[in-house]
């Protein structure tokens, strides 16, 4: 099957000599919901910039559904929609005009562009704001406006660069539902985000990029399987004056009602609860200290840093 996105040995060195990408390679399959993660400055936005022609690559190959961007970029662009990290529309144009005009840039007849504009503004709850200048919208509305604009030509591959940054939790969840729906309808989605919970709940496959290199590229399921330890917060029913004896478990008292306990892979939670029960400590609730993907993400980046320090 032809990959929705194929990146081979992609390199980018900026004019100031900074090597943003050091020959990365990965593929995204059609229909996938793919997470491209990495810390700030890792190279995510540079990669997206190259895919959509805003950044000129120094080397390597990029193909969108088998179309090499060096051979026929316009054809590749027709299959691609991009929601950038920064707001990049005219603040003085009306919401309707921004979306409908983008249809025109893709060569869509006015009638079709108008129909699609109505469809996506309604789906993204912006139809009531269609006559408002973009600068009057809230941050969340501006993000949804960029999604509507990116969908106007109904691309096969949609890339979202931190689409939920600065968006409140309720709106974020409604955007997730919307993105899941268009993914179900067949659109391949690549998502970059700093909310790892978002990546874990939406995406099936993942690439983690750090300092211009891919440090992990696998399915989220297999990545989570490699998690060797998880840290939980346990809330006790009664106040604790000191940390109970935890036996083979590692832990500490965070405050008089909360314990932080680390469970190694293979250890049984039942054993932990038995140990606590023996000491008369009743646990009323427990939760992960951090998102599981976040723990992995942090450990992967820490490993990378250690390797670099040892060099």
């Amino acid at each position, binding site marked *: 099957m032809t990959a929705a996105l194929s990146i081979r040995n992609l390199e980018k060195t900026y004019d100031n000599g900074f090597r943003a990408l050091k020959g990365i390679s990965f593929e995204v399959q059609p229909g996938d919901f793919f997470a491209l993660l990495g810390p700030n400055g890792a190279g995510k936005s540079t990669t997206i910039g190259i895919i959509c022609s805003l950044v*000129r690559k120094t080397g390597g190959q990029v193909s969108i559904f088998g179309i090499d961007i060096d051979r026929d*970029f316009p054809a590749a*662009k027709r299959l691609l929609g991009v929601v950038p990290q920064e707001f990049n529309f005219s603040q003085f144009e009306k919401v309707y005009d921004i979306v409908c005009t983008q249809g025109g840039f893709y060569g*869509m007849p006015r009638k079709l562009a108008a129909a699609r504009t109505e469809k996506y503004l309604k789906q993204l709850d912006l139809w009531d704001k269609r006559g408002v200048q973009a600068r009057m919208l809230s941050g969340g509305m501006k993000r949804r406006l960029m999604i509507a604009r990116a969908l106007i030509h109904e691309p096969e591959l949609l890339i979202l660069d931190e689409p939920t940054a600065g968006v409140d939790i309720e709106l974020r969840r409604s955007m997730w539902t919307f993105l899941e729906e268009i993914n179900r309808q067949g659109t391949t989605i690549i998502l970059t985000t700093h909310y790892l919970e978002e990546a874990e709940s939406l995406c099936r496959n993942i690439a983690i990029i750090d300092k211009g290199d891919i440090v992990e590229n696998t399915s989220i399921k297999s990545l989570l399987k490699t998690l060797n330890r998880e840290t939980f917060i346990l809330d006790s029913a009664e106040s604790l004056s000191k940390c109970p004896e935890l036996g083979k478990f590692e832990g500490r008292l965070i405050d008089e009602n909360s314990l932080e306990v680390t469970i190694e892979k293979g250890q049984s939670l039942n054993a932990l609860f038995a140990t606590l029960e023996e000491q008369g400590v009743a646990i009323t609730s427990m939760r992960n200290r951090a998102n599981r993907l976040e723990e992995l993400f942090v450990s992967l980046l820490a490993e990378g840093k250690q390797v670099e320090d040892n060099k």
Partner: protein
Amino acid sequence: MNTTIWISFATILRREVRRFTRIWPQTLVPPVITMSLYFVIFGSLIGSRIGEMGGYSYMEFVVPGLIMMSVITNSYANVASSFYSAKFQRSVEELLVSPTPNWVIMAGYVLGGVARGLIVGLIVTLIALFFTDLTVQHVGITVAIVFLTAVLFSLAGFINAIFANSFDDISIIPTFVLTPLTYLGGVFYSIDLLSPFFQGLSKLNPVLYMVNAFRYGVLGVSDINVIWAFIGVLVFIGFLFGWGMHLMSNGKRLRH
């Protein structure tokens, strides 16, 4: 031109026209006020004491120059400010990520500038009719030179916007280059009034050729050979179009 390219081009042009008509108090009104003042002060008050120039009353002489001046400044300013604003707000990325070819992007913006230049030129012409009678001697030459001049200065505005890194940068060329060239380009006087040295110097000014070709179209008199004006304008358009295309495809100032 295939359909999709034509739609892209028409979309850019429509957006440009929508932009300058939306902000009409900034784009269409100021040239009307400025030119009306020129007509009153230079044409009526001072002009009546100057007498004839080139065989015509001073008002008749100065009107084609002032129309041309408004076309030049407005077509330049429209593209320079619109394209730079698109760069500044990053809305130019809407176009750059689309399949629209570079030449269509440039053509759309340039025709937007031409549209504003010609609309302002038309308004100024209508105002001029309150002050003098205008009978166009050579319609074809008049229309062709005003259109080509608007194209040329729209292209120049486009290139200025590509190079500009701040709003100051789009006012430097109009202030320090365009205004002196226009004022010294035979808008207000015939170069016959100048000494041979300054006549020769004036002939190095491209604006002189455009203003005189337009004046020839309207009045039938010119300080220069009109053929040279057309050749010069076409050569400049070719050069600026090539330069603009190079900057767009090289992309250093638009893409990282």
